[in-house]
């Protein structure tokens, strides 16, 4: 625990990392408690369709029964829908909050899965060496050569698109980087004297792996995980954007996909989830880089 406090102290010296962390905390809180304060993201209201965000206005043609044809009306943003509405009058703020849930869920679960698989493959590859190492690493090489997005499209095309399946496929394809990193760290750790001392005491392989090798790679794993989360979030958004996402959930990619058709009439539908994606991804990157510097024994923050 003392070590954790020490690293936190070092992280505090890095402004961009703290900004990233603050945004991530804000996003998590919003995703957790936001839905209790906003209207349902699926509530349709055609009389309020394509409302712009607060402070903006837009010209829209509307059918008027009185005139018997289309009239142009100037719409203003309202406080009822601070970030506007989409073509069916659904509130964008609550959609974005629901999208934040999806993105964070995908980012954390898929990365978690990838990290666990990668760490186990990497550590066993390096620790057992020999033929086990060759087989596992060639398998990793093969996984790396697969075009990732194409593979995801294939899986979703074959098995249908549910959020669970998307998380699973991102996790099952994204472990290669972790495997290589953990392998290289383990290769240098396993010849260190404290590992040899454990062997001399008769410790089992599992004990050495879980008590000595993995805990000593944990700082690299945390950094890599933080830097991988944006990749998983973007992968889900990309899938949703090309229409292969889970249609049941309002993810940022789904909103983007829906908004691109209305780009002329209501630009904000596509722009808002795009901004959210941008800030989320950059926050995780900032935090990841900050953690990397904090864990680096050579880095020094005054």
């Amino acid at each position, binding site marked *: 625990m003392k070590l954790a406090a020490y690293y936190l102290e070092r992280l505090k010296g890095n402004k961009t990392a703290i900004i990233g962390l603050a945004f991530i905390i804000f996003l998590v809180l919003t995703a957790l408690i936001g839905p209790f304060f906003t209207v349902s993201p699926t509530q349709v209201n055609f009389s309020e369709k394509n409302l712009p965000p607060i402070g903006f206005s837009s010209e829209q043609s509307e059918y008027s029964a009185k005139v018997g044809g289309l009239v142009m009306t100037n719409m203003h943003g309202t406080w009822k829908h601070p970030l506007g509405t989409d073509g069916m009058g659904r509130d964008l703020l609550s959609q974005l909050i629901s999208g934040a849930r999806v993105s964070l869920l995908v980012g954390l679960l898929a990365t978690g899965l990838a990290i666990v698989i990668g760490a186990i493959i990497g550590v066993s590859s390096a620790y057992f060496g020999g033929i086990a190492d060759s087989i596992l690493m060639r398998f990793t090489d093969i996984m790396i050569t697969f075009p990732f997005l194409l593979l995801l499209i294939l899986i979703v095309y074959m098995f249908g698109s549910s959020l669970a399946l998307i998380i699973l496929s991102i996790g099952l394809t994204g472990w290669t980087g972790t495997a290589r990193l953990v392998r290289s760290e383990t290769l240098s750790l396993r010849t260190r004297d404290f590992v040899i*001392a454990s062997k001399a005491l008769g410790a089992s392989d599992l004990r050495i792996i879980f008590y000595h090798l993995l805990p000593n790679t944990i700082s690299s794993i945390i950094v890599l995980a933080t830097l991988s989360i944006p990749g998983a979030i973007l992968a889900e958004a990309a899938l949703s954007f090309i229409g292969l996402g889970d249609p049941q959930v309002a993810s940022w990619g789904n909103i983007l996909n829906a908004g691109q058709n209305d780009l002329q009439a209501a630009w904000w539908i596509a722009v808002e989830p795009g901004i959210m994606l941008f800030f989320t991804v950059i926050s995780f990157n900032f935090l990841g880089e900050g953690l990397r510097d904090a864990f680096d024994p050579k880095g020094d923050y005054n």
Partner: protein
Amino acid sequence: MAKIIEIENLRKYYPVTRGFLSKKRGDVKAVDGVSFFIQEGETLGLAGESGCGKSTLGRTILKLEEPDSGNILWRGRDITKSRKNQLKEFRKDCQIIFQDPKSSLDPRMTVGNSIEEALIIHDIGAREERTRMVGELLLKVGLTLDYMPRYPHELSGGQQQRIGIARALAVNPGLIVADEPVSALDVSVQAQILNLLMELKTQLKLSYLFIAHNLWVIRYISDRVAIMYLGKIVELADKDELFENPLHPYTVALLSSLPGSRNRKVLRGEVPSPMNPPDGCRFHTRCEKKLDRCVSIEPEMKEVGKGHFVMCHLY
């Protein structure tokens, strides 16, 4: 007195491979036919220059490296071919301490946990009992209970080395392989650690295989001394006999390098590569007293006095 460990003709080769398809280019003959024994309560010093195979020998007799040939007899039992699960008792009886005290402790474990791990692996004591035993071990190596929750990076080299010794002692071993345990420490701390090891030896009736390149240290701590050159033991004798009456030309040169000795013999040339050691006597490329047959015939180990063995054609 009973022999705690005896090794016969032990060999450990490391294959050297290079190239795309890992073609084998030869072997580094780190330990190449070594025999000796250690009695209970005895310290055998093992000296020799860097790269001569001292540490590999120490690790191979502990079965941390698999020997390529030869036998290891532990208290009369042949454990050369024993598998991991059959070695539990051996692991409890034979321990190791290391040269670099910093790297010998897990940086993510507290000192207390590092020592306790030895007890956990061998199912010694219940939880509270183990804490008490860890405390006793800390006192035994000259530290206090305050050290238990500390991390290795908070300690000095000498303190870290004491923790390493406490961990080795936790399982109550009979033999400790001390792999250059003081060469990374300051001179004043070296003396403390050496004295600690000597005290523990009489207190707990330990045997040591004490590996070092510092001959003063070897002379101070050992009962018998073995001199190693290029993977072979070239001379082995009681400490005083070896230091007063060295026979092998390599030993003579080694001892003459000690400060204060007269007619210093400087060895010419480099140590030959252990991948391709010279034919005949391994030392002939640098030997002053080389005979014709030294080039072609490898000398046998001969007992020239009581307990004084030497591998040289001169005797």
